[in-house]
């Protein structure tokens, strides 16, 4: 059977999900851990940001939006890249002291990519005061689709299994975000300047996986030394 549709993000999520699940992560005490920090940039000329048409609730959502699926800042800084150090063991995966929050503001998801340990409960906020719905498209986690009308400023969604899940709003079709539920603690998401930082890594050689929803997956190699900050400058581009 030939598919005319390109194998897409969905397939990649599956692959990413399977890869992270393949080897069980082992927790141990990390005493002289090193740090991995650096930036991810877009290589080449960044395409102009895609425009999103706001077709509904313009008084809250605004008139026009740029798509958050590929945000390239000055100097090619690439935001929303999920950086995963493929560590087999290291510090314990602690559930966060405070639930990760995920806001809906001016009909955009804040943040666009949210990473958290599996088993966390996400506090979903509705700052807009209009009807939104949180439709998650997980496979390892059961898909859920909850309405969040005006009178519910906060609802909670628990994510049990590690998986990268797309989140969409069916009321406002352009709204899309990603939840990255992880089974180990060495995961970061790049900020608007493309920067990320991962600490307490046991010294050693690692494969690091970069994933961006439009650019796909890329693997880098890195060597972490005790109590040192290993700086990297990585780049991604359209494949």
């Amino acid at each position, binding site marked *: *059977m*030939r*598919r*005319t*549709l390109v194998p*897409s*993000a*969905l397939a990649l999520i599956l692959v990413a999900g399977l890869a992270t699940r393949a080897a069980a992560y082992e927790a141990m005490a990390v005493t002289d851990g090193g740090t991995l920090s650096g930036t991810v940039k877009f290589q080449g000329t960044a395409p102009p940001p895609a425009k999103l048409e706001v*077709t*509904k*609730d313009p008084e809250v959502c605004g008139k026009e939006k740029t798509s958050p699926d590929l945000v390239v800042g000055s100097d090619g800084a690439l935001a929303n890249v999920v950086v995963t150090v493929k560590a087999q063991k290291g510090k314990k995966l602690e559930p966060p002291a405070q639930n990760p929050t995920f806001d809906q503001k001016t009909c955009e998801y804040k943040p666009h990519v949210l990473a958290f340990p599996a088993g966390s409960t996400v506090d979903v906020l509705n700052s807009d005061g*209009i*009807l939104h*719905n*949180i*439709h998650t498209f997980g496979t390892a986690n059961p*898909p*859920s*689709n*909850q*309405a969040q*009308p*005006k*009178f*519910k400023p906060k*609802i909670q969604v628990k994510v049990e299994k590690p998986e990268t899940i797309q989140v969409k709003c*069916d*009321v*406002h*079709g352009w709204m899309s975000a990603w939840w990255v539920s992880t089974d180990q603690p060495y995961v970061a998401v790049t900020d608007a300047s493309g920067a990320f930082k991962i600490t307490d890594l046991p010294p050693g050689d690692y494969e690091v996986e970069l994933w961006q929803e439009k650019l796909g997956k890329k693997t880098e190699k890195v060597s972490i030394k005790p109590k040192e900050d290993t700086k990297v400058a990585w780049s991604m581009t359209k494949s």
Partner: protein
Amino acid sequence: MARRTTPIDDEKRSYGAVWLVTSLLLFVGALWCIADDNLFRRPWKKFQAEFNRLEIQHLKDAIAAEQQRLDADPAYQQAVKTLADARVSASSGEIARQIADLQRELRRAQQQDQSKDLNLRFVKSELEELRFKYDDALHAGRPTEELLKEIEARGQLRAERQQVYTESQQHIEALQNEITQLESAVKTAEDEIAKLTTARDDVQQKLEGVSLGYLPGPKATAPYFGFDWQPKIPRIQQIVLEEFDRNNFDKPVARVDRCMSCHAGINKPGFEDQPNPWKTHPHRELLLTKHPPEKFGCTPCHGGQAPAVNSPETAHGNFVDEHGHLENVEFIERPLLRGEKTTAQCIKCHAGVQNLETADEIGRGERLFEQLGCHGCHLTEGYEDLAKSGGVTSIAPSLRRIGAKVDHGWLIRWITNPHQFRPRTRMPNFMFEEEQAVQIAAFLLSDTKQPSEEWLAAHPAPAAAAGTELAAKGKALVESIGCRGCHAITEDEVAGQLGANKDIAPNLAKVAEKTDARWIYHWLKNPRGYSPVARMPSLRLSDDEARAITAYLVTLGTKRPAPDALETRLTDVANAAAGEKLVRKYGCAGCHDVPGMENESRIGVELSAFGSKTREELFFGDRTDVPETWDDWTYNKLLTPRTYATKWIEQVMPQFDLAEEDIKALRAFLSSRTDSKVPVKYLYRPPGEDRVVAGRRLVARYNCTGCHVVEGRGGDIRRLYQEQPTFAPPMLNGEGEKVQADWLFNFVKAPVPIRPWLQLRMPTFGLADEEANTVVGYFEALDRVQVPFVHLERAALATENVEAGKLLTSKDYFDCFSCHQRGAVKPQGPPEGWAPDLALAHARLGPEWIIKWLRDPQKVMPGTKMPSFFPGGPPDVLGGDDEAQIRALRDYILSLGMPEPSPQQAAHVVTGGPGTSQ
């Protein structure tokens, strides 16, 4: 005196040696008889004894495992310790001394109590005696004063002794209580342990049940001192199915199954990993729970010589030889059914076998038999009426106007070998020579000349149905409106599968080689206008849309040159005459509507009892390499249908090119076509089963499952919507419960768009009333809908519910109309973002279904865009009661689009309407 004939010496001769030898022989013979009768000819005893041992071992292991678990359980350890402590303290130390003292005291008290009791009884007797004397004296006129005094004195004494005895009893009871009190720690501890060991004790009880008991035995090991659980003595295990079979005089006779004499573990869990005959039945939970062996026996599904126990070979009637090939035992008519032939028997009781769990092969086999059109040529009981639709043969496309449709060169190539053009077509290959193909084409074209020309005259070629731009538009339409639910558009694509390598609808990759723009255009516009038995539905295309799709389809494939002088040969009358003979001989009219051959009879052999055919009834031709069994014959026949032809005997069955699994499925189906009938009481006929069977056939005919998931199957088009499942066609699980019967009837007859966000179109199939009814009945039967009709009145909806519901739908609460259309009031944004018109709900949806839907939409239709609003309704409406809010929403939704109640209606408020239901 008679003369002595025997010499005196003979009488004196001793026959001791002869007697000894013969009596020894007799004795040995007797021993042999006993041994033969009990051991040699009873192999089942060995099997059953072995199973009994296995079961005992299994239970012993279970007990040991449970004991191990208990030993590791801290609660159990604690309980054991508590008990031991309690026992120790009850047998030594202060408490033990107290108990001993008390028991001594108790014994003394009990002894004294006896004499106290006796004293009381004496005085009671004396009292009775005195009363009699008094009575006697009174009647005899003697003085009674003395007696009365004595009675009073004795009465006094009795009361005193009664007092003494009661005190003694109380004393004893107090002592006993005291002892129990002191010993209670032990009792409590024992009860505690018993609670923890229930599981172990249950298995222990089972072990006692399946064994003779705890007897000396060879298998015993050290801790048992030569004692062990002993297996029971094997016995024939037999099941009698009264009046199951019919004898040659058609009189009901019982069937006797003794299979479980060897297969002793078949209905016992825990022996799944054992080899046969000790193995647990596969899917025991499902199959044997629904068909308990004591009621259904074994052979109704498995076949075999039910009562035979002489050897596995005679009981089974066949065996697998050292080469792994199945051999039949001679003279046995009903050998064991193996593999897919076992599940094939499901169809004998289950009419709706096509979606039956664990009956995949037979379901597939029946579907293939129906949809490949085998019954077009082969008369088969139960399938006689499927070949025609409204009296017109409708398995394959109608050939009534073939002249208006196809390219002549293509027609020759197609008739010669259809699989060359379309490898996955269901049309079989008759392996005609080109000459024969030309003859058949000549006949068909001359036979259909007049209706073809009339059709062409009424359907002129469309203007400007070509061009790259238009074709691009057409391609976009083909990809979006749903054509690909049934049709593949590239050669290696698979849209809907009939079998492993058969398509449901034609692959359109080379359609332009076959036909032209004129036919495509009019066919698209109105398929029934060309053929009244067309399966292809109308997609209600506008002229422009049909032109665009035509422009696209004519780019798929190119015309190829026809054979030399084809037109001359096609118009040759002799060719047409020869063609007619071929068409009759090969039974084309079995599947196709051919003018003038409407009443041709089926050309194939009847298959109603094909499964009962014996080896002698099967003709193997020159195939000496095919093992002479029904299975092998049938397999090879389906693989290469003309394989048994010889120099003298011709065969006409065409080549279907079936995949291995489809051949096996069809063979399973054929094996179920036997002349034996199952008694009515064994048939599974739940209400609505017939409607389900009819519905499935209709669903298969029109390939509803190309787009929709029905009964958990199908939804082929979803392959194109994996990323955006919300844009895929709705799944029809629970449709019977969801929609109202009359709405569904009208909808399938004349669909209207319901989901504004879908580009796909529900086609108009042009269903006859009976067919639409079949659809409605099918969905109702699937959901076991008892009352399909819904009567709603505006006045029956409670005003406070409607008002509360209206409030809940408002912007401050659920804001339903952010997405849902409400009659003429449309939501913001483009239609892709809209949700169904709620003003249609009162005519379309089942009131109870709306409640279910609002409670949890994802549960009803996984993946739906509709989010869950409950639990967690607003606290300030209807007291924050979710269920009350759901009912209010439902009532408000139903009120939309319903006319306001007139005063007369309001006076006739119907009670029990949806507004008051719980």
